[in-house]
């Protein structure tokens, strides 16, 4: 019992800051909002009913999943060459290269979005280059394009971390063996590296997908208030419409969806995890 006694202060923080709030969230989602927008105590699924029968919720879910899946896939696809480069680098370069790839995690997400605004904005680098080439200006922020680019970048460091951990277990001599047996680079990559990296790629995709589905800062700021995903909708319902039952119910549905994804992943057979 000494163990729990020592941990009592930490458990108290978890109880007050995590368990109680999540229970209250679940409870409030069972209330309903009347026609005047006031919260009415209730113990039913009226708010869930309203959300699930609203076509906007379906639209939100599809666009959120599409955004997250696309950005996660692209982030993993770009992270694989980065991770392979780090792995094959001379030992003294490995540390700095890995640090450069995960350094963005130490930089606030908002700060990185501001960098993207300066690169992709109307006065930004890309449009300046396009203008210099005599090409028409492109709208790259305040729309889905900007959100996709920003989200891909923000998910990449996580993908690199998972891939580095996963690829670290592969035997580098297999590459060599393939080369000795006469396989070219492309063939080695497609027939040896890629199949061996598959579990790590799946793990990286699963993590970045989950993070992408609940991402808020990037869709909000890169979307300029014109891109709607589940996360931005929860935020608006909570702080702008102040419809707490709806915000809570949508948050519970988000948790349910994330839980289902995690359950699906652990149900899939997998080698080498």
């Amino acid at each position, binding site marked *: 019992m000494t163990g729990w006694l020592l941990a009592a202060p930490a458990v108290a923080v978890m109880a007050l800051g995590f368990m109680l709030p999540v229970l209250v969230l679940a409870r409030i989602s069972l209330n309903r909002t009347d026609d005047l927008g006031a919260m009415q105590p209730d113990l039913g699924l009226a708010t869930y009913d309203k959300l699930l029968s609203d076509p906007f919720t379906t639209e939100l879910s599809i666009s959120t999943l599409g955004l997250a899946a696309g950005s996660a896939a692209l982030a993993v696809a770009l992270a694989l060459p980065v991770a*392979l480069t780090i792995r094959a680098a001379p030992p003294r370069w490995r540390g700095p290269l890995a640090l450069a790839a995960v350094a963005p995690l130490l930089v606030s997400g908002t700060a990185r979005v501001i*960098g993207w605004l*300066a690169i992709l904005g109307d006065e930004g680098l890309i449009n300046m280059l396009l203008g210099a080439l005599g090409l028409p200006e492109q709208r790259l922020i305040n729309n889905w394009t900007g959100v996709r680019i920003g989200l891909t970048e923000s998910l990449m460091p996580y993908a690199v971390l998972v891939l580095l951990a996963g690829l670290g277990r592969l035997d580098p001599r297999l590459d060599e063996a393939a080369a000795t047996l006469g396989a070219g680079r492309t063939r080695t990559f497609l027939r040896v590296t890629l199949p061996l990296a598959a579990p790590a790629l799946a793990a990286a995709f699963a993590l970045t997908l989950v993070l992408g589905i609940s991402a808020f800062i990037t869709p909000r700021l890169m979307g300029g208030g014109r891109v709607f995903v589940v996360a931005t909708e929860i935020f608006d319902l909570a702080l702008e419409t102040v419809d707490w039952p709806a915000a809570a119910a949508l948050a519970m549905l988000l948790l349910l969806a994330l839980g289902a994804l995690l359950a699906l992943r652990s149900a899939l057979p997998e080698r080498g995890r």
Partner: protein
Amino acid sequence: MSGQAGPRRPGPVMRLVAAAGYTLLLSPVVVVAAVSFSSGAFLSFPPPGLSTRWYAALFGNPEIMAALATSAMLASLVSMLALLIGLPAAYAIARLSFPGRRLLADLLAAPLLLPTLVLGLALLIALQPLKLVATWPGLVLAHCTLAVPFAVRIMTTAIAAVPPELESAARTLGASPLRAALRVTLPLAAPGLMAAAALAFLVSFDETVISLFLVGPRLTTLPVELFRYAENRTDPLVAALAMLLIAIALAVVLLVERMAGLTRTLSRD
């Protein structure tokens, strides 16, 4: 085609894609740094000229300076609390065997599994009736909910890495369990504890989403100011503000790296 030791060097295509990946990863930070020294009035890149006018505007902005003071104080407080609260829990998980030890470890990791948006909303709804929204206790509790799990995780690893025989030896020589833990294990785990405190500081100092739900007009943090500013206006002041946030985070990382080897401590687990 030469058979060289170690993984084969990636081919030109692979290296090109890797270079594109690094460009995507690093360009926003580089560009923010450049734009923060812009002499222009917009977030244009390349900047029309260089100046420190936006830093002058930043340090002359009373609201931003107030938010900076709040964030620094909040992060220091949270870091200290995370260390004090997390240390006994980490010791228990690393060293003692008791019923429910696994459950305790899981409980102390659980808040990190929740999207911060959901945790922020839950905290808002739970703390509003208690009149704790936009108050110091509310913000400290919210930030500790994230910082304690991080701190416990790092400290558990650090304490577990100290050979338990040293503590047993001290006990054999007549030290009480408390004295043995405090005088033998704790000093040896000190680098890890410092890394935990630093990470707790960073978690609090950079925390944006949960704070967005819990700040008020008179009590706001630096990341929230940055977020709100970026939502409404796009002049280079926002880049200077972002640099301020990055610089402080970097200073903490470097300080701990020099004192304790943060990267070593973090990568050990």
